[in-house]
């Protein structure tokens, strides 16, 4: 069961009309790894991850998740993965527990509602309406919905975008705990600090292609700081931000 990569993407292509969102992208994520897809908005991260989640079909290329093919065994695959989408709004009138109970009913192998509530630390909000939760709590609930099916691989699309620093940190803890249980995580982000903190390996995506890939710290070490503009006093070591600037000639925040 644990042989082979958790996620394998080969020469993936997807176009929307004239716009090439994904242009020959390759990825390989090992089991038990936390892998980050890093890149500016519009780089093709979301399209790539949604193809991996079985929500979009690719124009060409190969995608294997947990050794399974979306075309052949979609139902079996859906049982084994957890998904958090970028802009899902859960039903506001339902409570946390009701929402989780419904999502839980879709799966065969699953955690109990109380287990996932404890995992995402929403115990106090168990019977609160979703509409009354803060942004950070809603996001933790979204991840709880992804965890309730006891997934082997978790896909997170910009899990902390728009959250305050405290909520981000609490989400990072949650993601770290999941990784420590030996499961695989694939996440997209445009925050450098997030990728540095969470990911074992990252791929930097731009214009639908992987332009750099490697272990997070090795990527940081590889960058040559000498030719970079230094608008403010430099820290002693490079950051992922520097990696990105040296690769693309622009900062992520410009996008």
């Amino acid at each position, binding site marked *: 069961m644990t042989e082979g990569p958790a996620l394998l993407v080969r020469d993936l292509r997807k176009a929307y009309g004239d716009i090439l969102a994904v242009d020959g992208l390759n990825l390989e994520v090992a089991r038990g790894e936390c892998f980050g897809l890093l890149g500016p908005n519009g780089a093709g991260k979301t399209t790539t991850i949604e193809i991996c*989640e*079985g*929500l979009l079909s690719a124009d060409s290329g190969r995608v294997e998740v947990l050794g399974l093919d979306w075309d052949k065994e979609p*139902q*079996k695959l*859906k*049982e084994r*993965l957890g*998904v958090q*989408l970028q*802009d*899902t*709004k*859960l*039903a506001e*009138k*339902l409570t946390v527990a*009701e*929402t989780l*109970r*419904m*999502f*839980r*009913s*879709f*799966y*065969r*192998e*699953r955690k109990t509602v109380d287990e996932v509530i404890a995992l995402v630390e929403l115990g106090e909000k168990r019977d609160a*309406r979703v509409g009354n939760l803060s942004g950070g709590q809603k996001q933790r609930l979204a991840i709880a*919905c992804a965890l309730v*099916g006891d997934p082997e691989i978790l896909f997170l699309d910009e899990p902390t975008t728009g959250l305050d620093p405290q909520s981000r940190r609490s989400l990072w803890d949650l993601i770290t705990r999941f990784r420590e249980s030996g499961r695989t995580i694939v996440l997209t982000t445009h925050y450098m600090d997030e990728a540095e903190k969470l990911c074992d390996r990252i791929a930097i995506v731009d214009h639908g292609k992987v332009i750099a890939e490697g272990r997070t710290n090795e990527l940081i070490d590889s960058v040559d700081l000498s030719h970079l503009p230094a608008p403010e006093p430099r820290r002693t070591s490079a950051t992922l931000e520097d990696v990105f600037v040296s690769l693309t000639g622009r900062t992520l925040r410009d996008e």
Partner: protein
Amino acid sequence: MSETERRTLTDHPLFQMTLCRFLGFIREPEAVFWTFVFPILMAAGLGLAFRQRGPDKPHIGVVTSASSASALVSLKKDTTLVAETYDDSSGAKALRTGKVAVLVESIAGGVHYVYDPARGDAATARLFANRAIQTGGGAVETIATTDSYVSEKGSRYIDFVVPGLLGMNLMGSGIWGLGFAIVTARNQKLLKRYMATPMKRSQYLLSFLLSRLVFLVLEVLTLLLFGHYVFGVPLRGSLLALSAICLVASFSFSALGLLVSSRATTTEGVSGLMNFIMLPMWILSGVFFSSANFPSVVQPFIKALPLTAANDALRANMLEGASVAGVAPQILVLVLWMTVSFGVALKIFRWR
């Protein structure tokens, strides 16, 4: 993959999804108002406005002059009409504004009636006035007549309008209930989120029909009990047949709601579509007045509308005691709408 625990009924996805639809609905106070309270207020309002009362007496205007005095006396004596006196100009105005149906003027050797023959009540009023004046002048009826009055429950306006309101309510909650819930879920990317779970699409759609079923019982019961016990609206047909008609009608409108919401991604977009579909039926399908008032050329079209079929079947059952077999053509129309809408909706449904 094996079951790791025994699944109870309440843990079935269909049960859970139906429950969530139900909870989502009853926690929306506006939706509860429009579904349950509004139809009752409507029935109560219409029932009071058109409550049973004596027949309207025709209003007769008399232009006062020396020679019209005897005619006035004769008219005043007749209790089946109301006689009012006017001078020349105010009499003409009363006729023009509809305060009186006929204006009586005295002319040499008799009386002169002024009225608009196109007004339905004016010709009758002229007959009333003429009879009173002739009788006052000494005319005698040569044939003896007697009358008996019939006032039967089932022929009043409230009896007509309650089945119509019921049909309208079934249509509204079927189309609105499904349409908004589905389009909101699509708009908020919830549908897409569900697509990333092992949830079965058929069960998702089925959960809407099941939750509709729960509301259907409540909706129909509140309106029928209110109509029956407050206004004495008859329930002459079998309740089983009535339930069957409501069920088929509700599923047919739900399928229509599904069709309406199968592509739209915004609630604004789907609102327009819903109004486009429902407005003609509110007017044409005989909710507040009989659809027989429309020209015969458009009758086949009106009869083919699902709300007309629902209203006709409900009235036939409640007022005339028709069985399911008795309303077979209407049931057929509803089943056709249901099958075609559901089939097309499934084909073109946008899941993301």
